[in-house]
C-alpha cells in the first residue's frame, strides 16, 4: 500500500492551485453576484487540458482518470473557487460519452468538452427527485427522430452549456412498472426547449433551471448507449459525480480552515492570539481530522473507480466519500466562521457566502439520507424499507 502522492499529482495540484489563485474567491463571488459565469477561470483550467484529464487521448484528453479530475476539483475549491460544473460537464457527461458513445459521438463531442465547452446534465424532475425509476420525461421514436416531452428541474448551468445530456423514459418494464431509460444529447437551443431560472440562495456563478421539453425533436444518432438501457449508463456517471462532489467539499473545507488558522494566529484580543485558546484550537483541529478522513476516502473512491469502475467497492467508497466530505465541508466552514466571530459573516472575509454551496453538498448530488440508506442496505445488509 502506498499513500505517497505521485509527482504527477503534486504537479497537477500546484498548477491547478496557481491558476485558481490568480482568480481567487473575490473573483468567484463577484461573478456570482453579477450573474456572470466562471467562464474565464473555467477556460484557463481547460486550456491546460485539466478538464479532460480523465478522457481518452485519442479525443484530446489526458488519458488519466477520475483521480486526476478530483485533484482539479479540489484545488480550485481550495482557492475559494468551487466549480460545480466540473461535476456535471466533465465527471458525468464527458465520462459517459467516453464510456458509452460511438466513435462518431466521441469524435463529435469530446474534443469540445476537453477544450472547455460545457454540457449540462438533466435527470432530476419535480415528481421524481432521487427515484430515477419514476422519470416522467418521455422520448418517443418517430422515424429518424426522437421526440422529447416533459419537465426537468434543478438543472445546473444550462445557460452556459452548448448541449445537454438528458435522461428520458422510452418505455416501461411491464413486470416492475419501472421506467426504461434512454439518454440523449440535446442542443441547448433546440426548438421546443425552454428554461426558467430557479432563484437559489447559493453564491455561485452557475445558475439553476427548470427545463420544459415541449416536443423537442432529437436526431436518433443523439442516443447515448443502448435504447432502454439508460439506467445502466446513468449509474456509471454517478460515482464520478459523487467523487468530484466530495472533492469540492474537501476543497471548501481546506479553504475555510486555512482562513481560520491564519485569522486565529493573527487575531489577538486578550493579549495573545486567539489560536492559543483551546476553545478555538480544538474545534479547528477536530474539523481538520474530519476533513483529512474525507480526503482519504475520496482518494480511495477515485482510485477504485479508475481501477474497477462499476464495482461494489467503488460505489460504496464513492458514497462514503461524498457523505464524509459534505459533512466535513460544513463543519470546517462552521468552525471557520465561529473562529472569525462577527467577521465570519462579513462579505470581506469570504466564508459565509460559501455556506449555501456547502449546505447543498449534503443534499446533492445525492442526499445524506440516500447514502445512509445505501450503506445500511449494501454495506451492512440491513433490510430495506423501499
Amino acid at each position, binding site marked *: 500500500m502506498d499513500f505517497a502522492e*505521485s509527482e*504527477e499529482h*503534486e*504537479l497537477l495540484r500546484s*498548477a491547478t492551485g*496557481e491558476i485558481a489563485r490568480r482568480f481567487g474567491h473575490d473573483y468567484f463571488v463577484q461573478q456570482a453576484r453579477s450573474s456572470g459565469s466562471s467562464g474565464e477561470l473555467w477556460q484557463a483550467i481547460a486550456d491546460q*487540458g485539466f478538464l479532460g484529464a480523465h478522457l481518452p487521448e485519442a479525443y484530446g484528453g*489526458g488519458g488519466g482518470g477520475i483521480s486526476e479530475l478530483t485533484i482539479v476539483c479540489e484545488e480550485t475549491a481550495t482557492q475559494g473557487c468551487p466549480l460545480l460544473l466540473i461535476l456535471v460537464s466533465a465527471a458525468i457527461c464527458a465520462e459517459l460519452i467516453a464510456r458509452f458513445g460511438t466513435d462518431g459521438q466521441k469524435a463529435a463531442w469530446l474534443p469540445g468538452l476537453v477544450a472547455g465547452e460545457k454540457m449540462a446534465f438533466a435527470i432530476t424532475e419535480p415528481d421524481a427527485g432521487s427515484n430515477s425509476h419514476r422519470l416522467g420525461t418521455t422520448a418517443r421514436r418517430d422515424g429518424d427522430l426522437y421526440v422529447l416531452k416533459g419537465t426537468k428541474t434543478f438543472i445546473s448551468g444550462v445557460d452556459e452549456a452548448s448541449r445537454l445530456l438528458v435522461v428520458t423514459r422510452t418505455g416501461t418494464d411491464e413486470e416492475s412498472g419501472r421506467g426504461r431509460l434512454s439518454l440523449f444529447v440535446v442542443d441547448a437551443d433546440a426548438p421546443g426547449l425552454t428554461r426558467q431560472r430557479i432563484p437559489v440562495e447559493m453564491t455561485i456563478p452557475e445558475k439553476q433551471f427548470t427545463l420544459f421539453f415541449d416536443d423537442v425533436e432529437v436526431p436518433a444518432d443523439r442516443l447515448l448507449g443502448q435504447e432502454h438501457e439508460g439506467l445502466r449508463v446513468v449509474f456509471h456517471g454517478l460515482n464520478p459525480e459523487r467523487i468530484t462532489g466530495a472533492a469540492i467539499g474537501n476543497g471548501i473545507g481546506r479553504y475555510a480552515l486555512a482562513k481560520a488558522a491564519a485569522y486565529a494566529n493573527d487575531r489577538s484580543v486578550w493579549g495573545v492570539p486567539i489560536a492559543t485558546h483551546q476553545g478555538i484550537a480544538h474545534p479547528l483541529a477536530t474539523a481538520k481530522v474530519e476533513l483529512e478522513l474525507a480526503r482519504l476516502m475520496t482518494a480511495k473512491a477515485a482510485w477504485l473507480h479508475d481501477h474497477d469502475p462499476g464495482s461494489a467497492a467503488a460505489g460504496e467508497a464513492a458514497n462514503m466519500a461524498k457523505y464524509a466530505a459534505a459533512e466535513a465541508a460544513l463543519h470546517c466552514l462552521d468552525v471557520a466562521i465561529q473562529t472569525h466571530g462577527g467577521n465570519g459573516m462579513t462579505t470581506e472575509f469570504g466564508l459565509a457566502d460559501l455556506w449555501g454551496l456547502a449546505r447543498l453538498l449534503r443534499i446533492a448530488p445525492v442526499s445524506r439520507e440516500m447514502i445512509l440508506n445505501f450503506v445500511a442496505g449494501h454495506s451492512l445488509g440491513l433490510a430495506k424499507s423501499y
Partner: protein
Amino acid sequence: MAMNVVVCVKQIPDPAAPSSLDPGTKTLNRSGKLILDDSDSYGVEMALQLAGNVEGSEVTLVSMAPGGEVSGLRTALAMGAARAILVSDDSLAGSDALSTAKVLAAAIRRAEPDLVIAATESTDGYTGTLPVQVAELLGLPSVTFAKSVATDGRNLKVERQTEAGYDEVECPLPAVVTVTAGVVEPRYPSFKGIMAAKSKPVETLTVSDLGLDASQVGWAGARQEITDVSEAEARSAGEVVVDEGDGAERIVAFLEQVKVV
C-alpha cells in the same frame, strides 16, 4: 538553426512556507522539499519560446541541489524542457556563489549550449552574481537584465533594462543572458506536460563526475564566510491617510514625493 538552450534553475525552499536559518552555519535551512524558484520560471519560458521557434531545438535544465532534489526540475520539465542535469553531492553544502558557478559551469559545458539563460538573481540567496561568474568561467559573453530576448541562432538581440529605459545589445552566440521577471509570462504546465515530465531524463552528477575536486567546493572551497546574521528590522506601520475628499490628491502628492510620477 537548431539551438541547444540551457536554463539555470534553482530549487529553493517554498517562499510561502516559514523559512529558517541554521544557527550553526548561518545559512538557509534547505532540509525540506524544494520547489522551482519562481524567478527561474521566466527563463524556462523564454528558453521554451526561443527553442519552440526553431525545429530541433531543445531546452536543457541545469541545477545544483542537495539530496538529489528534482521537484523543481519536474515543474520545469512539465512546462516543456526536454531534459535536466542535476548536480547533487554532500560536499557541495556551504558552497558560495563562486563555487556554485564553477559547478554549474562544468555541468553547462557538458550540455554544449548555444545559449545559457539564468534569472537575474535567486529568490532565496539574492547575490545576483552567479550568472556573470558562470559566463566568465565558460569564456562566454554575458548580457544581463534582459527584458526582451531574440535570436537568429547566430546572434543574440537583447533589450537590456536600465534605470532610464533600455539598451539594445547584440552579441554572438554562444552567450549567457539573464532575464528579468518581465521578459515573458511563464506558462502553466499542461496535463500532458505533467504526465510526460516523469519520463524525461534527469542526469544526476557528483562533483567528481564534473572533474572537480571536493576541496574546491562547499565549506572547503568557500571564499566567503557568513560572520553574522541578525533579525530584519520590523517594518513600521506606515501612514494611514483618511480620505476627506482629497484622497486622490494626497496619493498623487505621495507618488511625486517618492518620484514615481
